[in-house]
């Protein structure tokens, strides 16, 4: 198929359809409403269900109910709306249900603003709802990658029977880029939902899909089943990418989403000025690419690590945890919808380099 120009939100919507999404539940919120707008036209063409709920609470619980039938279902929202959905996400994790939740993030906390942010990292990665559970979290940096990861989300949700999130800052949803959709959707084989889903109990024993286990042994057993899946995610689902990592780098930047692209521009311009910096971009935020970051950050030539976010040192905690104190980890970020510029990134790099020169002078 030829390339088309699409807004991130539309591309996500189309990708979901091509990955076999049959049910979409939504409530409008800027900056992701175009997903709903697009699917309000397209969903009926493919015979799927489009339903706008009366609130995000309703939507998330519709998703819970629909997911229990084993169908491919999803929702999209933005930060405050995703907060409202957390209870149902916890319930879906507890009941082992596959669902895809896409968060096109805006600045918070509270109602915040409508400009791009990455401030829902903790919420997504550390589990915004209650209980011992995890959501698998992927973060695209281009509209094309948003297409690819949206499709992957549906596969992973079914593979693990667990909620899977994709988070993108507002720009991922709002910007236009050229994208290409695969001719046909292919994925590795999956166990059939017929083995567990609520599909009608004719000629078989009734199934109860629930997250309630009053007997502590039963509840702990459920938690351990979930935990086993999360360990499998850690083994099999780590995704990351690096850019211009070389033996000449003194500094390693860690950034995800569109923030990583801004860092790439800064890195290209620094390179033109004779300063060599590498970039590490986590694509899966849970599982976090801990070993991969540790390996890149502890190369002999790397003196320090700089984490850059459109939030206040949220991912930095995972970067520090991965690096285990073996390199100093610095932070730069903006919030509230202000996006760091390549100039600001360059300034941070120069600051770190000159601080190092000062400290090495002192030693000598």
């Amino acid at each position, binding site marked *: 198929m030829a390339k088309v*120009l699409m807004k991130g939100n*539309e591309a996500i919507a189309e990708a979901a359809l091509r990955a076999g999404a049959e049910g979409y539940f939504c409530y409008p919120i*800027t900056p992701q409403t175009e997903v709903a707008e697009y699917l309000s036209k397209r969903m009926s063409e493919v015979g799927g269900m489009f339903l706008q709920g009366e609130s995000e609470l309703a939507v998330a619980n519709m998703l819970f109910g629909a997911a229990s039938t084993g169908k491919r279902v999803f929702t999209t929202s933005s930060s405050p709306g995703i907060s409202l959905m957390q209870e149902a996400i916890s319930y879906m994790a507890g009941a082992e249900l596959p669902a895809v939740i896409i968060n096109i993030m805006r600045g918070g906390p509270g109602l915040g603003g*409508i400009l791009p942010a990455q401030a829902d990292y903790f919420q997504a990665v550390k589990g915004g709802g209650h209980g011992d559970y995890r959501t698998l979290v992927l973060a695209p940096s281009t509209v094309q990658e948003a297409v690819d990861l949206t499709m992957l989300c549906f596969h992973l949700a079914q593979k693990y029977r667990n909620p899977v999130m994709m988070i993108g800052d507002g720009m991922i949803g*709002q*910007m236009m880029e*050229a994208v290409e959709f695969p001719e046909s959707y292919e994925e590795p084989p999956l166990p059939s939902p017929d083995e567990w889903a609520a599909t009608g109990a004719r000629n078989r024993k009734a199934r109860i899909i629930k997250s309630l286990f009053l007997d502590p042994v039963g509840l702990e057993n459920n938690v351990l089943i979930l935990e086993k899946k999360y360990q499998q995610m850690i083994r099999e689902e780590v995704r990351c990418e690096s850019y211009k990592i070389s033996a000449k780098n003194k500094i390693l930047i860690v950034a995800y989403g*569109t923030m990583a692209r801004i860092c790439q521009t800064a890195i290209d311009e620094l390179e033109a000025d004779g300063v060599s910096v590498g970039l590490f971009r986590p694509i899966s935020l849970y599982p976090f690419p801990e070993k991969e970051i540790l390996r890149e950050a502890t190369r002999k030539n790397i003196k320090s690590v700089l984490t850059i976010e459109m939030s206040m040192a949220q991912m930095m905690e995972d970067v520090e945890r991965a690096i285990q104190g073996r390199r100093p980890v610095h932070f730069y970020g903006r919030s509230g919808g202000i996006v760091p*510029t*390549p100039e600001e990134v360059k300034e941070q790099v120069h600051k770190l380099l000159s601080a190092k020169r000062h400290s090495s002078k002192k030693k000598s």
Partner: protein
Amino acid sequence: MLVISLVKQHRLPTFSKSILIIVGGYGSGKSEVAVNLSRQLVNAGSAPVAIADLDIVNPYFRSREASEQLTSLGIRTINPTGGQKYADLPIILPEVKGAIEQRQGVLVLDVGGDDAGARVLSSLSESFVEDTYEMLLVLNGNRPFTADLDGCLKMIDDIESSSRLKFTGIVSNTHLLEETTAQIALDGLELARQVSRRSDLPVAFLSGLREIIECDEFDNVDVPILPLERLLLKPWESSAGDE
């Protein structure tokens, strides 16, 4: 170099009307066309130029983001200010209605995408006097809903009914951002011509990135051409573009 620029100059679009309403589907490139058109009109120097951002459906990448640059060129910008600048609320400044009715110089109206974005015009439609404005449909044949003739004709119908105004012309702006080729722009012009034949609307001009439309393939194009310089950039494009 001088000769080339003179040759290209006479193909720039010119207008006898004092109000240019720029409308189209999402992602057709309306805002980029509107800001570049304003720049070209102010360069032509015949009349004062104002641009109003009427996009109430998109939260980002609106022409108001280039307002500082446009103001420095002597273009009057009519946009919500303060916190409202960042809102996606249906705010239409009273100055817009004033500017439409006063008809001093040239007024460029950058309208939001699709019929949803064009609805804003219906609240102003009584201020427009017939034959004093051009309403131009910006067409991008690489967008999913305007990829073929039927899609484009539907877009015209939808926008005309929501805006309560009639189109007067078409802008062929088919592109794929940085992946645009001369062939893509020329294929888009062919689509615009088809739409023109069916709708009886003339192709007002073709627009495209300067490096594309200065290719030899465009020498025989028989419609005016507006060269575009991208003013509404993504954050990772900004400082690279300055070099």
